[in-house]
């Protein structure tokens, strides 16, 4: 097991190198640069800036240089925000996105999964239909609609929660609900269908034929098997949520990674884009690793060595 984990962690190195390479090439492919302005700067100044940030070298030299510094923990400096290092920007934005993401993830797990379980156990009853109806709506409505509605009712009309910003708990409520609703609904549906499939399995009939009370059948024989597809989806989702949701962060003016990402692409702030891409892919790779390890505990047929 330890060997497997070490091997998987070593595998993230080529993955990250590739991610950086592609981000690099994609950024170069977009016309313009960090110093392109509406009022064009004198050529001399642009040349000087390009030289200072090393942008006058061929791309592979830049790539090599970036990797060389990155492995030493230096992700460079922002090209548009003077005097700020990428590490400090990411260091500020990442915890914010992580809180938002973990909050929404928790919502999806704590509400969505039990909802799916209940719907499946009450299959074809009004509770099932209601849960599926609500879940379908929740999954279908995008953040861009939910968020303004939440703000309108809960901040503007009833003044329950502040409409924007981040920091204290009450500011976190609306963004977490806005981002989490869709995933709560998604996980309710996923859990429900996984449960329904497991309930059809022969071994559930065997358990019933043994004379186990229904609660015990569900608890011992159905739940664990149903959780396998849920975990499959939960891992990448966690990575996705933690690395920031651009829309939610934008609507609620939250200083998270999603916003920085989009802003820095627009500004061609190459070093921030690369820095965020590295963090993002590292988190997703890590989340997938966690999922694969969890598999081993959930399903004994999967063993790593």
């Amino acid at each position: 097991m330890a060997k497997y984990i070490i091997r998987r962690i070593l595998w993230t190195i080529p993955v990250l190198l590739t991610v950086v390479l592609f981000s690099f090439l994609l950024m170069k492919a977009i016309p313009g640069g960090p110093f392109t302005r509406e009022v064009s700067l004198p050529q001399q100044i642009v040349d000087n800036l390009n030289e200072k940030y090393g942008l006058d070298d061929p791309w592979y030299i830049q790539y090599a240089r970036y990797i060389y510094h990155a492995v030493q923990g230096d992700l460079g400096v922002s090209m548009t925000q003077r005097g700020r290092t990428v590490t400090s920007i990411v260091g500020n934005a990442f915890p914010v996105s992580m809180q938002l993401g973990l909050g929404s993830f928790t919502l999806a797990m704590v509400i969505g999964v039990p909802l799916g379980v209940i719907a499946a156990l009450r299959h074809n009853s009004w509770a099932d239909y209601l849960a599926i109806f609500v879940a379908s709506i929740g999954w279908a409505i995008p953040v861009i609609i939910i968020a303004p509605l939440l703000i309108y009712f809960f901040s503007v009309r009833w003044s329950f929660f502040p409409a924007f910003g981040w920091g204290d708990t009450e500011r976190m409520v609306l963004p977490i609900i806005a981002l989490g609703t869709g995933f709560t609904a998604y996980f309710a549906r996923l859990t429900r269908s996984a449960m329904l499939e497991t309930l059809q399995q022969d071994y559930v009939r065997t358990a019933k034929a043994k004379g186990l009370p229904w609660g015990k059948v569900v608890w011992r024989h159905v739940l664990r098997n149903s959780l396998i597809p849920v975990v499959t989806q939960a891992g990448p989702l966690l990575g996705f949520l933690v690395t920031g949701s651009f829309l939610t962060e934008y609507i609620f003016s939250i200083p998270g990674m999603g916003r920085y990402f989009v802003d820095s692409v627009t500004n061609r702030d190459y070093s921030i884009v690369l820095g965020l891409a590295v963090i993002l892919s590292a988190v997703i790779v890590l989340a997938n690793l966690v999922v694969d390890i969890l598999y081993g505990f959930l399903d004994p047929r999967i063993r790593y060595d």
Partner: protein
Amino acid sequence: MSHLLEINNLRTHFFTREGVVHAVDGISYTVDRGKTLGIVGESGCGKSVGAMTIMKLIPMPPGRIVEGEILFEGKDLTKASERQLQSIRGNDIAMIFQDPMTSLNPVLRIGYQLTEGMRIHLGMSKQEAQERAVELMDAVGIPAGRNRLDDYPHQFSGGMRQRVMIAMALSCDPKLLIADEPTTALDVTIQAQIIDLLEQLQDQFGMAMLLITHDLGVVAGVSDDIVVMYAGKIVEHTDTDELFGNPQHPYTEALLGSIPRLDDTRRRELANIPGLPPDLVNPPSGCRFHPRCRYATQICVDKEPPLAPYDGGPGHLVACWHYRDSREK
């Protein structure tokens, strides 16, 4: 002495979107203590549904027992509460299923799955139950059972898994064992071993057995009596020797004719039964076998034949207007 199990005019129907499936349509039979009843018929004739109805293991809805009684030791299981059924399932009546590959839970250890029933029904501690599990594994021919308690189902072969299923079924010393196609998913050499094992364990544990199969060869050596089912109904019911020696229903004859024989020196083609099993939503009128029966006449289309004693032996029931002896007269 009363019968251990008595089924009276049992009808189990499934209410589906396509209509009502008459899976089991008025069957009656009895099983006595220590005896074996074989139920034979082709796929989809309702034999498995009939067996699973006894323990109410069919999904309800869409399934429903629309009529009939299931008397187990005189008590009607169709009227039993879920709690009463739970105390009977796995305890008084145990079941083994067709596919041992999917009938064990892949994520739980064999030891746990084996001991679950004993801990619930017999109130054993984990240690006691494990001790008995090792004995049971020994009894069903799983070598070194003690070392295998912590293994998972995927570490067992198909035949070994079916042995685990059997050990599990026997764990609470049931009075009746329902074996639903216990050998169908296994290869031929293993089939024989499992059947021998069941027969030997039946003597050892003194239980009655309901053996459901599509394979007459499987029931031949084991059963005391045989019920032949077609399209949700019983078409012939008699003791094993009589059935093989003196089959009266054209369907039984056809089934017997479709078994290849090793000692058959004539190079004849293997007989088959023309046509397809009937649609149980809209079963044929009259005798349900008439569209595939070569002796069928107008009465077979118009009127359903009753399951009645055929002239010969007292215990030989046939549902046919033209049973063999009447044709030969």
